[in-house]
């Protein structure tokens, strides 16, 4: 979370004309280096914010691909954990940071390339081509 704990605060929110919005890094396919504790924490924070699946390789060699929906940060890596829904299971699982050997952003970023501008551009292009019922279709659930 980018919150007060990070020291990044907005003091005069009442005078804001427009919300600053969030910039998203291109993380799809990224394999962060988990060299030390700080790298592990930063990478898993990014995985928590990511809009797609990630693959975690445990130190015992097993892997799990899924969506990280929660992380609980403790004082040590052993008492910090990510919680995720594995891609192929219905039960939530929890993995301590200390058991994670590798992390890969394997899933597609589900919001990338879908900006309002992209929609407007598409709309006018299709309109100019004489198309009707123009819209962004919800994605098929493969």
């Amino acid at each position, binding site marked *: 979370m980018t919150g007060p704990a990070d020291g990044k605060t907005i003091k005069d929110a009442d005078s*804001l004309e427009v919300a600053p919005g969030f910039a998203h890094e291109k993380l799809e396919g990224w394999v962060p280096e988990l060299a030390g504790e700080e790298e592990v924490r930063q990478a898993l924070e990014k995985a928590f914010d990511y809009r797609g699946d990630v693959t975690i390789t445990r130190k015992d060699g097993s892997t799990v691909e899924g969506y990280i929906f929660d992380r609980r940060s403790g004082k040590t890596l052993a008492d910090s954990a990510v919680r995720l829904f594995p891609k192929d299971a219905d039960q939530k699982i929890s993995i301590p940071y200390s058991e994670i050997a590798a992390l890969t952003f394997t899933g597609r970023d589900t919001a990338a390339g879908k900006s309002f501008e992209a929609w407007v551009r598409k709309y006018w292009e299709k309109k100019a081509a004489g198309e009707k019922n123009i819209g962004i279709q919800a994605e098929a659930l493969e």
Partner: protein
Amino acid sequence: MPVPISQMWTVASYVVKQKLAGRKRYPLVLMLEPLFRCNLACAGCGKIQYPAHILKKELTPEQCFRAVDECGAPMVSIPGGEPLMHPQIGKIVEGLVARQKYIYLCTNALLLKEKIDLFKPSKYLTFSVHMDGQREHHDFSVCREGGYDAALEGVKEALRRGFRVTTNTTLFDGADPNSVREFFDEMMELGVEGMMLSPGYSYDKAPDQKHFLGRARTRKLFRAILSNRKKTWQFNQSPLFLEFLMGERHYACTPWGMPTYNIFGWQKPCYLLQDGYADTFKELMESTAWQEYGTESGNPKCANCMVHSGYEASAVNDTFSSLRGMFATAKATLFTRHKDEHALKLLNETVRPVHSYNPLVQIEEASGQLEETNA
């Protein structure tokens, strides 16, 4: 038709009970998200950016009932995703009606005509139909041409069958206040019970990160829209919250007022932000670092927020906190006009969104000069 007295009484007596019990933090509306799947893909929405296996998941009716019982709030809002896509939505609503909860089923209404036989009219059930303004504005906002007409058909059918129907409208930077006011006329003529309004929130997971109002613009826009009101307009919201949107009141955020439950659990800290999940409602209330949220905390993720899920509960709490609050609510309920010469002038200003590439102001030519008689 106004909000039923039984609903007002239920909410009022619930809040008074919380006050008498000395509860500093209490839920007012449970935001129950039974699924994230949706049949729209609005660019400004931050609720549906999940991999397919997450979008396929849904809460069971039993999970919904457990959450409702655990939370204890007198009202339950069912957003999503699109709740009408849930295969057991009829059973979920039936169970909540049996628990005498006042339900706002938030829908884009694309499926309302098709699914309406699943429901029975009840004072406990309201279809809260997502309508982001007049036809072109709504269609652009939901990224679907024809979305407005389909929703309108659903609204008409629900009204014809005797259901309670409200609209809920989210406004973004570039919204034309004159068009919004005309939209209010259209909705009231249609016969909806009332309207709900909110500025859009810039979800950090949403594809669109550019068209969200900052607080200064939000107050200016809502002052233009909600001043010089017509008597026919009915709002299904706290009148003090509307005054907050107009910049006439200041409230601190009450993120616990509308707690959210979905397939991940109890969402920390509120309906809009996802900063983790608790497994129980008790854990949510006890383990969330509430002081780190709300505009007053300086948290940048809360900086532009004036959304009902954070501030309407604050307004309701204000009503019941003192005689002054009661009096202000009575006054705001009885005297709704809010005559304001400056706001009339705002209606004559050209809409200038911060980001120029915004079609909402290109669709229609600006309305002619307004005089007070138009208001």
